[in-house]
């Protein structure tokens, strides 16, 4: 369950982020980058041991970390998360990073097991939206930013990637629509494609293949640093490629 440590003591205003899928890979890397800047973090992941190990490492930075183990598709788990958010009373950044790849190796869409497809959509589309619902009052009060992690599979039509890709395509349209719906409330929503990374998830997508040519998730740190400096309402509705050539701010 929840555990806390290191209450913030610095002069700078407290900044709070909630990151799903934070025990490893991209989620952990972003969490560590923010923790080293003394953000207050609420982290979730499905598996207890890796999550607790991640928290232990992150607490060594001196940041205040709350970890809540669970599955983002479960109402009860989201309830626990939002309780942690309310206790802190602020939310500047919500990163919907936890994702379900689906069956691996990837079956073609024509023969795709429908119960797996439902699970993919539940984790990648419904759960992020449900978490946004739950966090909305705090996000509004903090004029926060929602980041939904997407993939080039959302646009590719790659054979075998139909379930994951269509879920991410749906998440991108959810992001764009929410951006328009929430602009007046002062909440920004963006989609971020981190690009190919050397993570467990990427390995699961390419079972048995050598993915050592892909960069580690740290390659995206400059993008996150840049995003921190952006006014959520200037960038809302945009889709960014963390490894892309230009991170554009609309005029």
């Amino acid at each position: 369950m929840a555990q806390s440590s290191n209450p913030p003591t610095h002069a700078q205003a407290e900044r709070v982020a909630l990151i799903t899928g934070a025990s490893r890979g991209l989620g952990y890397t972003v969490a560590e980058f923010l923790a080293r800047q003394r953000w207050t973090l609420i982290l979730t992941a499905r598996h207890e041991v890796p999550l607790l190990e991640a928290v232990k490492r992150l607490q060594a930075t001196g940041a205040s970390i709350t970890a809540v183990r669970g599955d983002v598709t479960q109402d009860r788990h989201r309830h626990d998360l939002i309780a942690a958010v309310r206790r802190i009373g602020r939310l500047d950044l919500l990163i919907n990073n936890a994702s379900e790849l689906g069956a691996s190796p990837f079956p073609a869409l024509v023969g795709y097991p429908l119960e797996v497809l439902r699970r993919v959509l539940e984790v990648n589309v419904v759960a992020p939206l449900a978490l946004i619902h739950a966090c909305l009052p705090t996000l509004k009060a903090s004029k926060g930013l929602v980041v939904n992690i997407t993939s080039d599979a959302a646009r590719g039509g790659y054979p075998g990637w139909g379930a994951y890709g269509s879920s991410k395509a749906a998440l991108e349209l959810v992001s764009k629509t929410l951006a328009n719906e929430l602009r007046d409330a002062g909440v920004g929503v963006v989609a971020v494609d981190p690009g190919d990374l050397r993570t467990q998830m990427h390995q699961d997508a390419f079972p048995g293949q050598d993915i050592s040519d892909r960069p580690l998730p740290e390659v995206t740190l400059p993008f996150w640093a840049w995003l921190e400096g952006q006014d959520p309402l200037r960038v809302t509705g945009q889709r960014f490629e963390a490894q892309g050539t230009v991170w554009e701010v609309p005029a």
Partner: protein
Amino acid sequence: MKRQELVFEQPTALFASTPVEMDHGARDAVRLLVTTPSGHQHATFADFPRFLTAGDLLVANESATLAASLESHGPSGTYTLDLSTRYADGLWLAEPRWDPAHPGPMPIQIGEEARVGDATVRYVAPYPGIPRLWFITADRPLEPILERAGVPIHYGYVQKIWPLDSYQSLFSRVPGSAEMPSAARPITPKIREALEVAGVRFASVLLHSGVSSLEIETDTVEAQAVYPEPFQVSEATAKLVNRTREAGHRVVAIGTTVVRALESAWTADGIRPRQGFTRLFIHPGNPVRSVDGLLTGFHDPVTSHLAMLAALIGLPRVMDAYREAIANGYRWHEFGDSHLILRT
């Protein structure tokens, strides 16, 4: 392209350490090497206007130089902290150095703290692929500290700290560059007037330059990580560039920063207004489409700037120009001589 192809022998006697106006009164007293497809011409910068014709467009960088070098006190003692790029409130990319002449690497640990003026900065993470650069976070804004205690970033070949004015050009308007966009330094009001009288027009972009041109460390040039810089190309400039090219005139960038900004705003339909951070790395595998010429200085061996010149006119002509420059004693670096490269 192999890293090895960008190596050349550079005599250190050719490093300029003094702004030319200190010795010769005027900034346009520097020399000008002009490289065109038909060869090289030797001139002085005062001759610059005669290499352009009516209708040509010069594009300048409006970024002004910050006094971005700070004294810092940490576990390694007193050392230099050069700020490169501001990312967010209190979040900068920076280069710690033993001192201006000694780049390190410093034995910095993640989480290490240092005192800079009345601020405490903390090392957050090294830049991926460029370990000499670090993201740092500060407990208060660093801008007022730069104003009080900062000096212009300088390296070993510049023994004296020159006033910040020496690091600004006629076009400097918006502070934000760690290092001077130096190509415009020799353009005096008189030269600008002569150009305007000759029918040459001016436009501007904004690109805040980070710390000095990157030395390529990977075996292949394309594999080198490059850091992004903030840029802005306005609608007015986009229109001027597009119209100039449609009319068959030349667009000449004043400085490599301008090439990076314009190329970052390039689309199949020409330049469009665009702003943000650009990571674009211009090398021969990534051709230049937006400019017909470049006014620049002379660049160090194995740097990303040299790869950009190779993208512009091909490596053999760059190396030929550099042999010509070395044989004729042209001077290197921000206070050095000028090089006008025209593609046609």
